[in-house]
């Protein structure tokens, strides 16, 4: 399968997001791919407020089955969540469970005025919750035995990768 370049998807997302920004909008990236995407989006959007990063390990719904996620990363939200217009960023939207967890996590910091979702890849089919993205880089159908996610190289360049689930 030919994958689109991460940079062109980010540029495309930035162009779509820009006209909708208000002075109250902040970016919140979801660990880890979403944080990288937010870092790249942020300078393209002229938002003064620094972007936040959100770890959803403590809000996942599979703790009973697989325990705590091996790599818990600190959540940093360098702004008040209360009343904010939040643009949640993730690399891939698939089942929708991570986005559910992210929304629950955000509400424990305050009551946002609005939450919207931007993703590089909308992996269509197999959504398990009534969740849709407001901004989509590309919609892709990926075989169920494969996993798609963002990777970052030593020069901090982003790339999309397909891997077989063993």
């Amino acid at each position, binding site marked *: 399968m030919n994958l689109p370049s991460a940079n062109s998807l980010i540029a495309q997302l930035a162009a779509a997001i820009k006209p909708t920004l208000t002075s109250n909008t902040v970016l919140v990236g979801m660990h880890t791919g979403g944080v990288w995407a937010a870092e790249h989006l942020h300078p393209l959007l002229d938002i003064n407020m620094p972007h936040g990063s959100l*770890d959803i*390990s*403590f*809000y996942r719904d599979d*703790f009973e089955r*697989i*325990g*705590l996620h*091996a*790599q*818990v*990363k*600190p*959540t*940093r939200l360098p702004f008040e*969540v*209360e009343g904010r217009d939040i643009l949640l960023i993730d690399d891939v939207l698939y089942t929708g469970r991570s986005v559910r967890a992210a929304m*629950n*996590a955000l*509400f*424990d*910091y*305050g009551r946002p005025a609005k939450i919207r979702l931007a993703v590089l890849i909308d992996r269509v089919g197999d959504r398990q919750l009534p969740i849709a993205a407001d901004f989509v880089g590309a919609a892709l159908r990926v075989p169920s035995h494969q996993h798609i996610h963002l990777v970052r190289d030593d020069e901090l360049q982003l790339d999309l990768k397909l891997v077989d689930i063993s």
Partner: protein
Amino acid sequence: MTINPQLNADGSLRHLLTIDGLPRAILTHILDTAEGFISVSEQEVKKVPLLRGKAIFNLFFEASTRTRTTFEIAAKRLSADVINLNINASSQSKGETLLDTVDNLSAMQADMFVVRHAQSGAAHMIARHVAPHIHVVNAGDGRHAHPTQGLLDVFTIRKYKGEFHNLRVAIVGDVLHSRVARSQIHALTTLGVPEVRVIAPKTLLPVGVEQMGVHVYHDMLQGLKDVDVVIMLRLQNERMRGARLPSSQEYFKYYGLTQEKLALARPDAIVMHPGPMNRGVEIDSSVADGKQSVILPQVTYGIAVRMAVMSILAGN
């Protein structure tokens, strides 16, 4: 090699009984996870739903304020149901054995026991006894171990110093009777601190303490020289009655931490104490409240570290 009773067959942590024998990777995983829990206390709602529906029993057979309270707060911030049992000598004297107590609480659908007991090995005994789905955390057993205290101490050190591989750490005081010191020494050496010193009179050091990989000093003025971290231990008042020490004034003169003695350490050295402090016995008030003291941050970090331990165990 004997099987470590704390670990599952796949090497994951099932109980936390002692730091002795745990691999560095497990300690680092606990510290990294605790880092993630720090932000929970910054939330408007200081709670995460990880342990919703789990019942955690705090079994305290020995008095404790700080440890019991921080375990309780940690469990509540994980959304667990917490039941505190302060079991004093009189209720035990009704004749129920420790394991009978545990069996009865297990029948009430306990998922985890946090155990403080005056007898070394009490938590081990409970861990060997309970059903496979139940986890046990040692919150201090006799002179043996106090692993979550050791972990919160190394977490505090990492917070202030960043790394372990370039540090000199001095532990000062009653090492002989201290489960805290044992857990600290195991944690520090496992994480790669190259120089751990113990500073105490001979009467307050266990025989063969050098075999734990520490350097022994009897003179505090020598022992504090150029250290990055000073950990003071509590001098238990009851020790004064025996023949081990002349008087608390005498002890303070030789082993109490004052500003003058602290000046021998590195200028950016931090001062730690597991509490409760005896001001004027092992530590001078001006040091305890001074700008190098991180004694209160230790308490705060203790919550995040205990949240990490409980959530890792419950998920394994």
